[in-house]
């Protein structure tokens, strides 16, 4: 320990402070810090981008599937002037509903499936002048 105004103090043999060593160590850590900083920055940027993309994708994805515009149909309400005892019969009403549903499906059924016709292909390879 150094004591102020100590006549015995030997300034000649005073141990050298290794300043150079400290500077070197600091210099060695600096690029590491820069690397960590850049890496963290890139990671955050990627995360931000990923979140942004996922939001965008959600907005782009249609919530409902495309459905064809329903064809307007004129529904003639059938009026029963003199009802029979079966006009309100549950079984008859149920059958009426089933038949109506069947009618709808009969109208909607596609019995062409034109898009599934076999493809027209050119198998005839010719290398002769016509």
């Amino acid at each position: 320990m150094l004591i102020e105004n100590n006549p015995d103090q030997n300034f000649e043999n005073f141990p050298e402070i290794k300043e150079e060593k400290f500077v070197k160590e600091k210099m060695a850590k600096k690029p590491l810090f820069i690397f960590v900083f850049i890496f963290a920055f890139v990671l955050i940027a990627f995360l931000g981008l990923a979140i942004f993309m996922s939001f965008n994708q959600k907005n782009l994805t249609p919530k409902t599937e495309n459905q064809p515009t329903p064809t307007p149909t004129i529904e003639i309400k059938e009026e029963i002037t003199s009802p029979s005892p079966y006009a309100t019969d549950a079984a008859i009403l149920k059958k009426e509903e089933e038949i109506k549903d069947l009618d709808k499906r009969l109208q909607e059924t596609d019995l062409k499936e034109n898009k599934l016709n076999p493809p027209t292909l050119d198998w005839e390879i010719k290398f002769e002048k016509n």
Partner: protein
Amino acid sequence: MKKFCPNKIIIVLFLLSFFFLSPQKSHSEEKIFDADKAFQDYLYNTNLYRESHSEYIVARESYLKYQTLTSKNAALEKTRTMLKNQDEVVKTYLTTLRLKLAEVSGITNYGQNVLYLRVDDEIPWFKKHQESLNSAGTLEDLISLGEDGKEQYQETEILAYQTLGAILTSKQSVLYEEITQRIKELKEKIGEIRAKGDKNTSLAERWLLEAENRLTRSQEKQFNSQQLLAQMKTNDFNKNESYNKAQFAIEESHQYLKEANSYLKEVIRELKNAD
């Protein structure tokens, strides 16, 4: 105080990056491979085929005009690509048909399995044919392989039309079965009403009879269509015409089903109205 350790932070950040940036499956990837997806594949391959066919035509014309080695090599490659794409079109088309067939319910298990087997035999043929195109070294080889494909495609077309016919018929069969069931139920109901004697059922019974007649005619047309499809031959010049006839018969059969159902509506109307 604990010493700051950047190495640990790097490891943590690295692991975190893997956690957050790992590829996530999009909605389309999660979607199962069904007939619609197969159809999209088929359309994509058809477009590729069309493009390669145009390139083949250009390369062929160029070779016929200049007769150089370069143009010959170009023609060879373009023809090979076109034929490969053609095989891919057939493969994806048959896959679409197979998946479409799996979606319909009105076909018997036996009928469905027979068609599955035939389609499953057909797809590998085109796969093999596609592979054999790689070993073709001359234009003559490709011409010969093209001939093989043409011959096989005659069979494929028949299979395709028959499968399509089965798909349409099965849709029709489901509706036919349902109408048959409705007729049966209404018959029972009319029987009950007749037994009670509080309503005259003769008109309703007549409508029901008419519905049954239409059902019989519908089935006749369906058989007619099946026969037309079964009679198709590989050497038929215009298979499309035969198929159109069969398809028209199915439409007629469908029309009879519509009529049968309209008669059932009359039965209900008659039962709801007083005598």
